């Protein structure tokens, strides 16, 4: 019934236990090291886009720069503000750091998905999946964990006992909660098509380019997910949480030393996790690029999938950096408008349209009837959207008449 890891079905031996331990250890270390290089990569690429050089002194090409920064942060004085809520202040960095790790556990980072293999590879003579865990609730767990990360940022600002962090955390909680809705709605379209929430199941269903969810759901949910994920990560252009010009450092203003480093690491780790989730959901994860009967072949044994996965993740990491280098920060009301008045309605409408199409297909409607249904649906959606626009206009006018601030 559940697509459990083949390793854990039947008798669990010490060998199976060892394989799980190796997977946990490897993913922990790889994620930490990858974060280190991600910081370097981001600084280097953004420097390139701004006609600068970037870090180039520590190690070859400045690769060890993050290590040097981390060592420095480790040995700096760890300040605990007088007016801080001591317990929560200490807890907050871990609340944002630990979910960043956990969310990565459900990502299939490799595996052989060809010929209905469902991602199983042989490792040390054991047949297993190349992901730490494949819970049946899958992506739901990912969404839950990304919600917990909001607490980390929110509590960090609140417990600092200082006004700028508090303003930053108020922004953070409002922003992340509102974009989570758009995020969830665009993921729901994938659940609808894949019929499963397990990440392994979602990847298995994306055998060829035509079945990749970016194509199968129509590009709109992908775009919405990309935007909402950027906001969820508090990355530019949605980095109002730590808008330097307005809020000093935002929620982490009062943090120093290793606690600040944890926030910093969590931010970059979340960027990578989010890129990995996008790849898993929309771009077939470790599946190779295949169009029709042609497949781009790379032979690396059990790690062929990992190669494809990494290649795709790198593209998204680059896109995030590109966003940061190009786009200026949004104003707070623009951010909220984009979230509530544009992304959520579109995501909801797209979800409803796809659901309708799915029902029509299951009921055996003819192609013409399906198209007619879509046209009627689109007309209704546009009417609703027009009504919404009118409602917001009216309310804006009323507020202006009442002399509110905007």
């Amino acid at each position: 019934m559940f697509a459990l890891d083949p390793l854990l079905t039947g008798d669990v031996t010490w060998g199976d236990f060892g394989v799980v331990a190796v997977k946990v250890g490897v993913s922990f270390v790889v994620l930490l090291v990858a974060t280190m290089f991600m910081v370097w990569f981001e600084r280097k690429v953004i420097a390139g886009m701004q006609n600068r050089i970037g870090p180039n002194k520590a190690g070859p090409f400045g690769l060890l720069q993050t290590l040097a920064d981390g060592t420095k942060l480790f040995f700096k004085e760890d300040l605990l503000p007088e007016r801080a809520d001591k317990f929560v202040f200490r807890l907050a960095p871990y609340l944002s750091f630990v979910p960043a790790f956990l969310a990565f556990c459900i990502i299939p980072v490799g595996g052989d998905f060809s010929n209905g293999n469902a991602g199983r590879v042989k490792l040390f003579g054991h047949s297993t999946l190349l992901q730490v865990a494949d819970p049946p609730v899958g992506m739901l767990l990912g969404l839950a964990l990304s919600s917990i990360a909001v607490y980390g940022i929110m509590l960090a600002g609140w417990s600092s006992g200082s006004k700028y962090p508090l303003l930053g955390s108020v922004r953070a909680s409002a922003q992340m909660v509102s974009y989570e809705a758009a995020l969830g709605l665009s993921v729901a379209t994938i659940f609808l098509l894949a019929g499963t929430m397990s990440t392994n199941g979602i990847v298995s269903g994306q055998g060829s380019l035509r079945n990749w969810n970016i194509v199968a759901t129509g590009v709109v949910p992908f775009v919405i997910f990309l935007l909402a994920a950027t906001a969820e990560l508090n990355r530019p252009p949605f980095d109002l949480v730590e808008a330097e010009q307005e809020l000093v450092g935002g929620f982490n203003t009062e943090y120093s030393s290793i606690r600040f480093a944890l926030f910093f690491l969590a931010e970059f780790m979340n960027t990578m996790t989010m890129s990995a989730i996008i790849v898993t959901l929309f771009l077939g994860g470790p599946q190779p690029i295949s169009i029709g009967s042609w497949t781009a072949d790379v032979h690396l044994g059990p790690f062929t999938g990992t190669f494809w996965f990494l290649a795709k993740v790198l593209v998204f990491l680059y896109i995030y950096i590109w966003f940061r280098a190009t786009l200026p920060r949004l104003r707070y009301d623009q951010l909220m408008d984009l979230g509530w008045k544009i992304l959520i309605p579109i995501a909801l409408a797209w979800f409803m349209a796809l659901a309708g199409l799915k029902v029509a297909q299951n009921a055996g409607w003819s192609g013409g009837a399906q198209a007619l249904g879509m046209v009627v649906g689109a007309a209704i959606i546009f009417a609703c959207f027009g009504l919404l626009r009118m409602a917001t206009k009216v309310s804006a006018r009323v507020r202006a008449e009442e002399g509110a601030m905007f």
Partner: protein
Amino acid sequence: MGLLEGFAITARQHRFFGGERVTNEYSGGRTRDQHDQKEAKPDRVHGRHVLNRYEDGMEKCIGCELCAGVCPAKCIYVRGKDNDPENPTSPGERFGFVYEINYLRCIHCDLCVEACPTEAITESKLFEFSFTNRKDAIYTKAELVVGDDGKPQQMPWEDWREGDDKNTSAWMRATAPAGAAEYEGQVGWSGELGYGVRAPEPAQPERDAAPKSVRAVGR
């Protein structure tokens, strides 16, 4: 579309699309053997300060505290005192009794140099001085004032290179008094210990007028 155009512009700045690096690595190159090859610094680099003296060895500072007043980082602390008539420290009525600059705060804006009425404080070209404790970060008068040869004193933690201590008053000599063109090339400053009256600078080389070429973004 403006949005996408922006993405194209940032992407085009990469080196393989012909984007240019405008950074000068004054502190040395990338590889180990290049670490010590410092790039030549422009004449008017804002570096560590020096307190100048007149040709007869008298200090130029008169303890007026204008530098401390103008300092945006509030890193200068000056106290003036009446000169001893028998053995004066400066030619005027008063002299700088205490003079301290906190280099943990200094932003090297050179406003103190502009404010100084006697050209007492100017800047050398030294910017690599990584002290390891807070006490070293606060330079006192004993450390700032030039030695008997008119050269800045060199602290053990400072990385002085050839030419860093030359033309410490270059900034003064580039500025025509009152900003009027007819004063250009005329001496409007006092002599310095070890150098005498410095000659006015020749016309500015083109290098100073035009910045290094930055790739213009076509629309």
